[in-house]
């Protein structure tokens, strides 16, 4: 078997299936988005851009868009901030490799949990009547806090769970990255009497700029898939204060009403938005990290 045939037979099946699935979903969503199909009725008609028109006037959609943006920013920044602080701290204070590995194992556990399981676990902890957190809060003298039922707290309470999973996971990765860095620039900075935080702010973290941006991109992509967490913890409530775009699309298109076309238009807009943003970021990463 020569090289050309080998490449053909190894690449084609996998990529063909991927391309087919992607094409079916995108073409399908595009097609339904210009129809007026709902799950309840079998017949449907061409509706043009009607669905898109209605979307832009839909206050619930605009609210979901706003919540999605807030969610992205809070979880990406939160996870990276936690990871940066903790990884530098472990790098500086924990000398024993054995202890480091134990800490890493503990930090990896949350991200392995299914989101549904993480959601249950934290709903239990957050519970006002029997949750551990409210018990601890009551010891300090703060009354029961309705973490998930209070409109001003619900989104941030769910975000904490996401950061608990991803921030600790990224801590492990950033620690491993710090360990791979060459020692000379750090020692040179130490000779110049730089403080520890200065060394990290001006020497080590800039050296890790490329990988950190990649982590941010990965987190941004994964944050878009937080449906499970929010669905189980709040279901989008109270009201619509935690309703992100995919939750609204799910509610409109599948759960209630089955307005397939309306939800398709929504997911097409979401797809367009993410593809544009992430393509630009991806291009940027390749430029910056070289």
């Amino acid at each position, binding site marked *: 078997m020569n090289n050309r045939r080998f490449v053909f037979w190894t690449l084609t099946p*996998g990529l063909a299936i991927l*391309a087919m699935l992607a094409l079916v979903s995108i073409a*399908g969503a595009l097609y339904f988005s210009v129809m007026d199909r709902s799950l309840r009725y079998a017949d449907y008609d061409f509706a043009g851009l009607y669905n898109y028109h209605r979307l832009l006037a839909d206050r619930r959609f605009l609210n979901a868009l706003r919540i999605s943006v807030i969610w992205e920013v809070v979880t990406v920044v939160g996870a990276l901030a936690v990871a940066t602080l903790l990884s530098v701290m472990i790098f500086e204070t924990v000398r024993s490799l054995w202890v480091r590995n134990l800490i890493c194992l503990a930090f990896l556990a*949350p991200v392995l949990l299914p989101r549904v399981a993480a959601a249950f676990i934290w709903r239990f902890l957050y519970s006002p009547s029997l949750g551990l957190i409210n*018990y601890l809060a009551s010891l300090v003298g703060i009354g029961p806090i309705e973490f998930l039922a209070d409109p001003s707290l619900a989104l941030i309470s769910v975000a904490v769970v996401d950061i608990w999973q991803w921030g600790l996971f990224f801590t492990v990765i950033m620690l491993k990255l710090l360990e791979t860095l060459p020692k000379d620039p750090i020692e040179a900075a130490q000779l110049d009497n730089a403080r520890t935080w200065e060394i990290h702010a001006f020497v080590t973290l800039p050296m890790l700029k490329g990988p950190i941006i990649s982590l941010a991109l990965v987190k941004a992509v994964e944050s878009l898939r937080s449906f499970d967490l929010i669905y189980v913890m709040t279901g989008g409530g109270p009201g619509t204060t935690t309703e992100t775009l995919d939750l609204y699309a799910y509610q409109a298109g599948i759960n209630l009403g089955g307005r397939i076309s309306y939800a398709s238009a929504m997911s097409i807009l979401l797809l367009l938005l993410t593809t544009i943003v992430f393509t630009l970021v991806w291009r940027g990463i390749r430029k910056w990290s070289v």
Partner: protein
Amino acid sequence: MVSLIRRWLSGLLLAAMVFVALTPILWTVLGSFKRLRDIVTPVPKLFFSPTLENFAIILQNPSIREGLGHSVIVVGASVLLGAVLGVPAAYSLARHVQRLKGDFQFFVLSLRFMPPVAIAIPFIVIYLDLGLYDTLAGLILVYLMTTISTVIWLSVPAFERVPKEIEEAAAMEGCGPGEIFVKFALPIAAPSLFGALVFTFVLVWNELLLALTLAADNATLPVVAASITSLGKEVPWGVINASTVILVLPPLVFIGLLMSFINRMMKPGRR
């Protein structure tokens, strides 16, 4: 002196973070062995007489048993197919494709940008028409999108780390590309590939939205678990804890493997 205090403080903070990382999980495990009256107490109980009641309820519940079975079949089949189709493709990309490599990799990554609802909605309609709705085969098919792309994405760097000299030497001996792949590249990259598969497994095992929309009676474990809260009037916290533990167990078994995978991927690569 000041640095000693600072060291103590950061040590304390790290200990607190380990506590924060693990306590929620351990508390749930503890809760799964409690009777409801031990859970619904104003003061959380650390000591109680443990019971296996919750697990008995879970394992006797047919929908949960079936969900577990469906999860095993769907996740197993899609990860296996993802490996069979994805690993050779990743090897080709790493070794034989130069000009279009970046484009292929971007295509594979861009599949992760797709909002799951954008996949779910067209597929629910198409599956209803084709009679694939609520079948395990239908679920496996959509999951291939996740498994193949993730396997390729994570395996390309693993193959790039295989020393080129070994493959060149094998080629000099007259081995064809297929033979080099199976006999040399695959065994050397195997540990990293295994890590990539574990990662893929965790992703699909945890998936909720597609399973929720594309299946009804043949749903996977996350869907069944998510629906437990609406069982009866009184929230069966013990049962929820027990089902969470069952859901959590398979991914957690792989924690050591994932750790060594991360260690290997983060080592400076030798080309």
